[in-house]
C-alpha cells in the first residue's frame, strides 16, 4: 500500500507544482538564513557567512532538481512535453497530418465496418436469442444436395437426439396486408410451438404457442406479432391480445407481442408475425403435411447441448438418418440431415451474403494495408526533411532515447486520432449495408451490425505499428549521422539516385500492386454484372409488367377467384395500352418458389431410388406469348384448356432432352402427381428463378385445371409501371373494394432484384477501389514530389545546361511510371492467383480476363501520370539560378 501513497503524493505534487515550488524556495531559504545567522554568531563577516552557508548546503539547484524529481512524476512530465511537442509538429505540417490521419481513418474505418457487418450478420445475427453460440441450422440432404425436413422426421430427431436441447421448425410464409389502395407483402413464419421458448425470447404481452397448437390441420388460427407490427400496424394498442387479424384469408387471434429487437430467425428480413405449425397448409397450400413423412417443408434450427460440438451432433443426426432410411425406405431412402454453423446457414440471407462479405473483408484489409504503406511513405518522406532537425537536436545534447520517445509519441498521436476517426466512420457505415439490399415495399430489412471493438483495436494496432515503425526511421538515421558532415551540407541528391530510396520505392510498389489487385477484382465483377444483365433469360424482360392480387388473403374461394380474374381481364382489355394480360400461379424470379411435382412418362424408366421431381407453373391462356417465351413445337395453353377439357401440359427443351431423349413429345402422355396429362407443346428453355441456375426441366399446366387460382398478373404493355399501377388499383377497387394490387414492376426489375448480391459486391468493391486508388495516388504524389524537391539542384543544372522543360517532365514522369510498371507486374502475378477465389461471384468471366487486367493497368497508369505531373511540372519551372544558389 505504501507505493500507492507515494504515487498519490507524487500525483498531488504534480498538480500543485506551482505552490510547492514556492514552499521549497521558502524552506531552503529559511535553512540558509539560519545557517548564515549561525555563521555570523561564530564571528564571520556577512559575505563570508553567506558563502560558507552555501558551501555547506551543496549545489542549490541540483538539490532542487532532485527534490522535484522525487516530488512529481518526471516520466509523466516528459511524456506530456512530448505530446505537446508532437501536436506542435503535426500542426506545423497540417497537410501531412491531414493526409496521414485520413489514410489511416479510411483503412481502420473500412476494416471495422466490414467486420461489424460480418459479426452482426453472420456470426451473431440474432441479438436477443439467449444461446446463439449453441444454435445451428438444420436442413435435410438427398443425393441432389440440400432439401428440407418433414414434420414426422423432425419428431424422430427430437425423440432420438441426445446431444441436442431443442429442435425448432420454421417455414417462411408471407401474407398480404392492405395499406390504403395498395397491397403489401408482410413476411411471417410458420414455426413449431417450442420456437420462442427454445430461443429464450419472452413476449412483452400475452403468451407464445402451446404444444397442442402444433397439430391439427389449420386448427389453431393464433398468431404472435412482432413489436414493429404492433407499433406500426396496431398503433401500440395495449389491449391487442385477443383481437383478430386476417392472414391469408383466415381470421387469426393475436395471442402475443414479441419484444423490441426480435425480428425472427431469417437473416436479411424482419418478420411481422408467427403462426404455429398446424397453420402450415393455410400459408403454403398443398395439403396437410404434418403426418406426411414425404412432405418436406421445414427449415430448422437445433440448439446443441452445452459443450457439444457441431461434428458430434452431425454424427448423431446422420446415425438417426440411417435408422429412418431403414425404417421408412419409401420416403427416406437416400436422405439424411445436415447441420450448419449459423454463418453458413444455407436458406437465408447469410448464405447469399457470405461470399460478398468474405470478399469485402479481404478488400478492406487490403485497403488498410495500402493505408499503412501510404502513411509509412509519408512519414519516411517527412523523416528526410526532418533529418536536419534531428541532427540539431542531437548536437545540442538530446539523448537518443529521448528522440525515440518523441517520435513514438508522434506516431501514437496519429494512430489514436485515426482510430477515433475510424470508429466514427464504422459507426456511420453500420447501416450502409442495408442500402445494398433490394428494396421491396412492406418487407422490412433487418441486418444487425454490431460494433466490434476487438476489430477496431486490431486495425488500430496495425496502424500504430506502422506509424511507429516508420516514424522511427528519422531517429535511426539520426543515430548514424556524422554530426559535422550533416550540419555542413544538406543533401544535394540526384533524381532517381539509388541510396535510401529503396524503402520508399518498395512502399510505392506495395501500394501500386495492391491497388492494381483491387482494380482487377472490380473489373471482373463489373464484367460479370454486365454479362448477367445481358444474359438471355428466355423471356422478355422489357415491356412486361408483373403484379399480384392476393385474393386468398381476402377470403376468396376458388370460384370467386376465377370470377374476379375474368372480370379484371375483361376490364384491362378495354384499357388502352395493355396489349395482353395473363394470370399465373407463380411469376419468374420472385422470392416465392414454384410448385413442384413428381412425374412419370411412358418410355422413361427411372433408376432405382430416383424419383424425378420437376418444378412447374400453372398459367392462364397465352402465357408464353405474353412473356415472350418462344414456342418450338405444338401450341400454347389456350382458353379452351379449362376444367372440363382434357388435362394438358407444355414442357421445356431440357425436359424433352432428359425424359424423351430429344424426340418431340407433342401428343405423348405425362403423369403429374398421379394424374395423366397430354403434352401439347414444347417451349424454349428459360431462366426460372436465378440467372446463375443451369438449364432445368420445367413445364406449364393450365391454371383452370389446377386446384388454386393464380394470384400473379403479367401484362404486356408499352406504358410504365407507375401509370399501370394507378389504373390497376382503380379497376381492382371497382370490382371489390376489399382488394388491392401489389407493387407493379417490370420483369427486368424483378430479375435485377434477384441478382442483388452481385451488385452489392460491385458497389462495395467500387467504394473500396476508389479509396485504394486515392490512397495510392497520394502515396505516389508524396514520393515523387519529395524526389523532385531533393533533386532540385540537378534539375537546375540540367536546365542551365540547356535541357528543355519537356525533357525534364519526361525524366520525372518516367521514374514514376517505372515504379508503377513494376508494381503492376507484382499485382498482376498476385491477381492471377487470387481472383480464382472470387468463384461464385463471377459470371461468365474468366478470373484471368485480359480486358479487366488491361483496364486496371490503364487506370493505374493514368493515376500515376496524375500523381507525377504536379511535381514534374514544378521541376520544369525551376529557376536554375535560384535553385543553384540555394543549394
Amino acid at each position: 500500500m505504501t507505493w500507492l501513497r507515494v504515487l498519490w503524493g507524487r500525483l498531488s505534487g504534480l498538480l500543485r507544482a506551482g505552490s510547492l515550488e514556492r514552499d521549497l524556495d521558502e524552506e531552503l531559504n529559511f535553512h540558509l538564513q539560519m545557517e548564515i545567522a549561525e555563521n555570523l554568531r561564530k564571528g564571520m563577516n556577512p559575505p563570508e557567512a553567506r558563502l560558507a552557508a552555501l558551501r555547506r548546503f551543496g549545489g542549490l539547484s541540483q538539490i532542487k532538481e532532485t527534490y522535484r524529481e522525487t516530488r512529481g512524476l518526471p516520466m509523466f512530465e516528459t511524456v506530456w512535453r512530448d505530446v505537446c511537442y508532437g501536436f506542435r509538429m503535426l500542426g506545423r505540417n497540417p497537410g501531412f497530418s491531414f493526409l496521414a490521419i485520413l489514410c489511416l481513418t479510411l483503412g481502420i474505418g473500412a476494416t471495422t465496418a466490414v467486420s461489424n457487418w460480418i459479426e452482426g450478420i453472420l456470426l451473431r445475427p440474432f441479438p436477443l436469442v439467449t444461446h446463439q453460440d449453441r444454435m445451428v441450422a438444420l436442413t435435410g440432404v438427398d443425393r441432389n444436395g440440400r432439401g428440407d425436413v418433414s414434420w414426422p422426421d423432425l419428431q424422430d430427431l427430437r425423440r432420438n437426439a441426445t446431444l441436442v436441447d431443442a429442435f425448432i421448425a420454421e417455414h417462411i410464409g408471407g401474407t398480404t396486408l392492405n395499406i390504403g389502395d395498395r397491397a403489401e407483402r408482410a413476411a411471417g413464419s410458420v414455426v413449431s410451438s417450442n420456437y420462442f421458448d427454445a430461443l429464450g425470447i419472452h413476449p412483452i404481452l400475452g403468451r407464445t404457442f402451446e404444444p397442442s397448437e402444433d397439430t391439427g390441420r389449420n386448427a389453431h388460427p393464433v398468431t404472435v406479432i412482432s413489436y414493429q407490427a404492433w407499433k406500426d400496424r396496431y398503433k401500440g394498442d395495449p389491449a391487442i391480445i385477443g383481437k383478430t387479424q386476417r392472414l391469408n384469408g383466415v381470421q387469426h387471434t393475436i395471442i402475443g407481442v414479441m419484444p423490441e429487437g426480435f425480428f425472427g430467425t431469417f437473416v436479411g428480413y424482419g418478420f411481422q408475425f408467427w403462426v404455429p405449425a398446424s397453420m402450415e397448409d393455410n400459408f403454403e397450400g398443398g395439403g396437410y403435411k404434418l403426418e406426411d413423412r414425404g412432405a418436406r417443408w421445414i427449415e430448422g434450427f437445433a440448439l446443441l447441448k452445452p459443450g457439444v460440438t457441431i461434428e458430434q451432433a452431425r454424427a448423431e443426426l446422420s446415425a438417426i438418418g440411417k435408422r429412418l432410411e431403414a425404417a421408412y425406405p419409401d420416403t427416406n431412402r437416400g436422405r439424411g440431415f445436415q447441420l450448419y454453423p449459423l454463418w453458413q446457414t444455407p436458406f437465408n440471407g447469410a448464405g447469399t451474403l457470405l461470399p460478398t462479405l468474405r470478399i469485402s473483408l479481404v478488400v478492406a484489409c487490403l485497403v488498410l494495408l495500402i493505408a499503412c504503406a501510404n502513411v509509412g511513405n509519408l512519414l519516411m518522406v517527412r523523416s528526410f526533411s526532418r533529418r536536419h532537425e534531428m541532427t540539431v537536436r542531437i548536437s545540442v545534447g538530446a539523448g537518443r532515447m529521448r528522440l525515440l520517445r518523441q517520435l513514438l509519441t508522434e506516431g501514437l498521436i496519429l494512430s489514436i486520432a485515426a482510430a477515433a476517426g475510424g470508429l466514427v466512420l464504422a459507426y456511420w457505415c453500420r447501416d450502409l449495408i442495408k442500402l445494398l439490399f433490394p428494396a421491396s415495399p412492406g418487407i422490412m430489412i433487418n441486418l444487425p451490425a454490431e460494433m466490434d471493438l476487438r476489430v477496431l483495436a486490431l486495425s488500430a494496432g496495425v496502424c500504430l505499428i506502422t506509424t511507429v515503425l516508420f516514424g522511427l526511421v528519422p531517429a535511426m538515421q539520426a543515430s548514424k549521422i556524422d554530426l559535422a558532415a550533416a550540419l555542413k551540407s544538406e543533401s544535394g541528391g540526384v533524381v532517381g539516385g539509388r541510396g535510401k530510396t529503396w524503402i520508399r520505392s518498395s512502399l510505392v510498389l506495395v501500394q501500386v500492386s495492391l491497388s492494381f489487385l483491387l482494380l482487377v477484382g472490380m473489373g471482373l465483377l463489373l464484367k460479370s454484372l454486365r454479362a448477367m444483365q445481358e444474359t438471355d433469360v428466355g423471356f422478355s424482360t422489357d415491356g412486361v409488367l408483373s403484379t399480384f392480387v392476393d385474393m386468398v388473403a381476402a377470403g376468396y374461394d376458388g370460384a370467386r377467384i376465377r370470377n374476379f380474374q375474368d372480370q379484371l381481364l375483361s376490364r384491362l382489355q378495354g384499357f388502352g395500352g395493355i396489349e395482353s394480360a395473363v394470370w399465373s400461379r407463380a411469376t419468374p424470379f420472385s422470392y416465392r418458389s414454384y410448385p413442384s411435382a413428381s412425374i412419370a412418362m411412358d418410355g422413361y424408366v427411372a433408376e432405382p431410388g430416383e424419383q424425378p421431381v420437376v418444378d412447374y407453373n400453372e398459367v392462364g391462356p397465352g402465357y408464353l406469348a405474353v412473356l415472350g417465351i418462344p414456342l418450338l413445337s405444338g401450341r400454347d395453353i389456350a382458353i379452351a384448356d379449362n376444367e372440363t377439357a382434357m388435362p394438358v401440359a407444355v414442357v421445356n427443351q431440357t425436359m424433352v432432352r432428359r425424359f424423351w431423349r430429344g424426340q418431340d413429345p407433342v401428343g405423348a402422355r405425362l403423369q403429374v402427381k398421379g394424374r395423366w396429362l397430354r403434352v401439347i407443346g414444347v417451349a424454349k428453355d428459360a431462366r426460372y428463378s436465378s440467372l446463375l441456375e443451369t438449364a432445368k426441366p420445367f413445364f406449364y399446366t393450365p391454371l383452370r385445371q389446377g386446384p388454386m387460382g393464380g394470384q400473379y398478373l403479367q401484362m404486356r404493355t408499352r406504358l410504365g409501371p407507375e401509370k399501370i399501377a394507378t389504373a390497376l388499383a382503380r379497376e381492382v377497387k371497382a370490382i371489390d373494394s376489399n382488394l388491392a394490387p401489389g407493387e407493379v414492376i417490370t420483369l427486368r426489375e424483378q430479375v435485377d432484384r434477384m441478382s442483388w448480391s452481385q451488385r452489392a459486391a460491385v458497389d462495395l468493391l467500387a467504394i473500396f477501389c476508389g479509396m485504394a486508388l486515392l490512397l495510392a495516388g497520394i502515396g505516389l504524389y508524396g514520393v515523387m514530389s519529395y524526389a523532385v524537391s531533393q533533386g532540385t539542384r540537378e534539375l537546375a543544372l540540367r536546365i542551365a545546361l540547356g535541357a528543355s522543360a519537356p525533357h525534364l517532365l519526361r525524366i520525372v514522369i518516367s521514374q514514376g511510371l517505372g515504379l508503377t510498371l513494376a508494381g503492376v507486374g507484382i499485382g498482376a502475378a498476385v491477381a492471377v492467383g487470387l481472383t480464382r477465389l472470387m468463384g461464385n461471384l463471377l459470371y461468365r468471366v474468366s478470373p484471368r480476363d485480359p480486358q479487366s487486367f488491361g483496364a486496371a493497368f490503364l487506370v493505374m497508369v493514368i493515376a500515376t501520370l496524375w500523381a507525377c505531373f504536379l511535381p514534374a511540372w514544378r521541376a520544369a519551372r525551376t529557376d536554375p539560378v535560384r535553385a543553384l544558389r540555394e543549394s
Partner: protein
Amino acid sequence: MGNEKSDVLHGSLALMVLRTLDTLGSQHGWGIARRIEQTSGDALALNQGTLYPALLRLEQMGWITSKWGASENNRRAKFYAITRAGKKQLAAEAENWERIADILGRFLRPTSESS
C-alpha cells in the same frame, strides 16, 4: 529516478532523521541537519541540502509529517514530526542496523588481525 548508488546512505540518513525526530520531537530541516552533525561529531561530511529530498521521501512513505509553523526566531519554517508508522519503522530499522553492524564487525575484526 533517484541514485541507487547511494541507497545505503539514504537508508542511514533516513534512520538518522527518524531517530532525531524521535528524540527531539517536532523540528525544522536546519535543526535536524545541525543535530545530525553534532551527534556525528562533524565526522559526517554531508551536504546539508541532501537532507531535503530525504525528508520528502520519508513524508511520502508516511513516516513523518510536516507542518508550517513559527521558528524560535519567529520566522515561518516547515516543521517535521515522526508518525506512529515512523516509530515502528525506526524500531525495525534500528534493530536491523544493529544486526548488520554486528555481523560486519565480526567479519572485519579477524581480517584486520591477520593483515
